[in-house]
Each structure stands twice: as C-alpha cells, then as structure tokens.
C-alpha cells in the first residue's frame, strides 16, 4: 500500500516536472527559431550594417535598423516619463493612504486596465489623441508624443502592481520607527519607505519598459511608422516591433530574414531589460 502511495507521489512529481520543463522547451524553441531565421542575414550582411545601418530598404538590399532601435527606446522612454510618476503615485496611494474599501475598488480596476487589448488602446489613440496632438501641437498627430502617451497608460498596471508589492513589503517597524521620531506621514514615505523599496520600484520601471518596447499593435496604429529618427516629439517614427508587424505580410527572401533579424535585436533588448529587472529584485531580497 505504502509503495503504491509513494509511486503515485513520484508519478505526479515527474508529470509536473515534465510540464514545468515544457515551458522552458517552448522558450528554447522560440529562441532557436528566431536565431535560426535571423542570424543568417547578420552573417551575410554584417552585424554593423544591420544594427548601425541608417537605411532600411530591404527589397533594395539595405537592412539598417538603427533608426528603429533609437525610436523604440525613445517611445519607451517617453512612456516611462508619463507612466512612471503616475504609476508610482498610484502605488503609494494604494499602499500608504487608501482605506480597505478604496483598495478593493482600485486594485481590480487596475487589473482591468491590464486586460484591455492593445488594439483598443491603439484605436482610442487614433480617434482621440492623434487629432488632439495635431490640432493643438501641430504635425500629423501620428507622433512620438501620441505613442508615448498611449504606451504610458498601457504600462501603468505593470508599474503599479510591482511597485505596490515593493512598498507593501517594507517592514511595518520602519514606519513605526519613523513615526516615533516625529516624522509626518509624507516624510516617512519619501525618506523611509521609498528608499527602502527603491530596487523594487526600479524593477517595476524596467519591466514597464519591457512592456512598452514590446508593444506592437497600438504602436503601429499611432506612431506613423516613418523610417527616419524623429527630430521632434511631433515626428512620426517606427519601432522594431512595428517594423516586423508592418512588413511581415509581404516579405519574402532576404526581406523576411531581415524582419527576423529585427526580432533578434528586439529579443536581446528585452532579455537585457529583464535581466536588469531581476537583478534589481534579487538585490532587494538579499537585503
């Protein structure tokens, strides 16, 4: 009898391990596939001509994606400028000020925001933000600033939930000690709680960046997709993700490979961001 129970336990354990590893397998397959399709062009054209190339005309033999790399970082930075203060404020309110009832209302609302499909954000951007930017600021409206605004809102849930967790995990004794020293609530927050939760908050920003840099649908709809590096916040631009989604439909031969090369670069950037974010979180736990 005991043997059977042990056997069953073992069986369940191994099945679970197999399933757990399968997600790793998927990750590996995706890596292998993207690298397999994307690397040949790097070898053929040269890493420098792709990553630092200024001209993208894949049907004519130019595969430079440097402007898109810059553009991707620009919209991501723009999204952070908008999303980070908003998200952090919201997280501070949730963890330090809001009552139970408000929290019960706000938390699900933010989760709902995370669940809104990106095409809906894109659509709202085209219908409302683009015309507003065009009418009040100038340009075509399909621009760096419109895209940053929409992405800024889209990364809010990521920033809020992760910095909230970081703020909440600051030990209660810190707050009590600060209060005992005669600090007001706000003094406690910005002198004690935020510094203690710093690495978690930074991690939330970096994960938010990862979300923004990987966003595609909304970006294609709002960014205008011009190939040039934008020289003002009102200029249109094309991101790495936008480039892939925009051109995949018609691409063949080297053009198609070039899109996979774009994917390789994008994957590397996101891997680096995730690494930094994890590093930040780990340091917090080590403390």
């Amino acid at each position, binding site marked *: 009898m005991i043997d059977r129970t042990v056997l069953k336990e073992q069986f369940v354990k191994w099945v679970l391990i197999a399933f757990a590893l399968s997600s790793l397998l998927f990750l590996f397959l995706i890596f292998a596939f993207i690298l397999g399709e994307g690397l040949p062009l790097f070898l053929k054209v040269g890493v420098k001509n792709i990553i630092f190339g200024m*001209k*993208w*005309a*894949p*049907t004519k033999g130019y595969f430079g994606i440097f*402007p898109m790399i810059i553009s991707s970082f620009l919209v991501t930075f723009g999204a952070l400028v908008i999303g980070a203060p908003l998200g952090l404020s919201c997280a501070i309110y949730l963890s330090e000020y809001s009552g139970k009832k408000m929290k019960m209302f706000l938390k699900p609302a933010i989760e709902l925001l995370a669940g809104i499909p990106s095409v809906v954000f894109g659509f709202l951007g*085209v219908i409302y933000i*683009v*015309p507003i930017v*065009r009418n009040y600021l*100038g*340009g*075509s*409206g*399909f621009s760096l600033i419109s895209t940053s605004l929409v992405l800024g809102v889209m990364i809010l849930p990521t920033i809020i939930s992760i910095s909230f967790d970081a703020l909440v995990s600051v030990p209660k004794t810190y707050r009590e000690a600060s209060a005992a020293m005669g600090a007001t609530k706000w003094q406690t927050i910005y002198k004690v709680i935020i510094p203690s939760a710093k690495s978690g908050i930074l991690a939330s920003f970096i994960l938010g960046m990862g979300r923004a840099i990987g966003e595609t649908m909304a970006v*294609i709809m709002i960014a*205008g*997709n*011009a*190939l*040039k590096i934008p020289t003002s916040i009102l*200029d*249109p631009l*094309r991101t790495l993700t936008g480039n892939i*989604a*925009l*051109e*995949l*439909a*018609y*691409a*063949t031969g080297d*053009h198609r490979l070039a899109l996979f090369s774009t994917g390789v670069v994008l994957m590397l950037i996101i891997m680096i961001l995730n690494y930094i974010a994890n590093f930040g979180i780990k340091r917090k736990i080590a403390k």
Partner: protein
Amino acid sequence: MLLPLIAGLFISCGNNNTGKGKQTIIIAGSTSVMPFTEKLAEHFMIDNKDITVDVQGGGSTAGVQATLNRTVNIGMSSRDLKDDEKILNKIIICHDGIAIVVHRDNPVTALSIDQIRGIFSGSISNWRQLGWVSRKIDAVSREEGSGTRGAFEELVMKDKEIDDGTMVQDSNGSVKEVVATDPYAIGYISMGLVDEKVKPVSINGIRPSIKTIKSGKYKIVRPFLYLTNGQPDKRTQTFIDYVLSKDGQRILKNEGLVGIHD
C-alpha cells in the same frame, strides 16, 4: 497573414479528399484585389452552389509564392510578374488606377506627376509650395513589399526614392483613414476604393476616372492579375471564365475598376 493561408490549405485538402459535397477554390494574394474578388466570389457562389470560393489576403508577393507552391488555386497580384515568376499563367482581370488622395477640405485639386514625386521624395514638404497654407505636408505611403507601393514607385517615383520621413500605413484602408482624418495629409490608394471620405486630385490635369483610364490619359494605372500554376482545374476555370464574362466584368466596373473589354 500566413495562418489563414495554411488553414485554407487544410480545408481544401479535406474537401478534395472526401470528393463529395462542396468543392473549394482557394484564392489568395494582393489585398488590393481581394475585396473585388470577394464580391465576384459572392455572386459566383449564388449561381454555383456546389463550389465554395475562399478568398484570402497576404499581399501580391505572397500570392505569387502561394501559386508557385500550389497552395492556392488562384493567386492574386496587383503588380506585374518579375522575370523568375513568369512561368505562371497570367490572366489580366481588369485595370486599376492609383488615385492620389487628399483631405476633403484641402483646396489643392490638381498636381503634376513631378509635384507628387517631389512630395514623396521630400523635396516638396510644405503646402505653401503648392499654393495653400504654410503647413508641413503629411505624406502617407505603404510599406515595403506592398503591390500598391510597388506600382506607385514604378509609375510615379521612377528613379527617385520615397523619403524616410514619409509615414507608412499597412493597407489601403489605413492610408485612406489617415487622409480622411488629417487635413494636411496626402496618400495614394487604389482608385476602386476612393469614396466620399477622401478627395482624389487630378494628375497633369487629368481626373482619375474609368473614362480617363480607358482612354489612356490617366497614367497611374496597374493591372490586376489572377495567376495559376499550369492549366487550372475545371472548377477554377469556371470561376475565371465567370470573372472574365460580361457579368463578372460589370461587377468590377461598378466597383470603379476598368474592365478588360473596354
């Protein structure tokens, strides 16, 4: 974009293997030709209840590829075949003008080919240069690889390149949407898709219309092609015959295209 193609392939295999019931014709390719093919297919299926016509997009190049691989019965292309693709059977079903469109409130009604080339190559960048307000021109192009872009480059841009600062949208519909909402935009779309939301401009004094295309006066015209790999099978031939028949051509004409018999 490839998924429906693959899905369609499975459906067709299923149907061919059973041999009974409905037969399927799979058509894929140019997104410019697709809406018209869908219309034709609707009418065709009313009279041929035993045949299902499955129309998919993917783009001209995908259409050519799919025909070469025999994954579709008919490929659609809105550009002429390249040399290494000429082994395919080419059937011209109609001609389509490419209209240069601006916002309805734009007072500019006529441009020359040179001016359009200037706008898209970046040498003309302000509406004042074209006799309107001092405001940057928001030119909208199509993405690399698109049949409409290919035809526009060949017929308008010639040896000039489209400027890197030009906005890019990935379908005729998106270009139309941008031009319809941005008063300072200019773009190019298939003439059959021009409606009251946007305003086509005259080119070298010639308004784009079926009449001016027929007479050869309007120059920005491209063929819409059906492609088959070798001799088409019977049901495919029935559909092609229908498209080339008077009824089929009338449908295309009603959509603003120029038939082959004109």
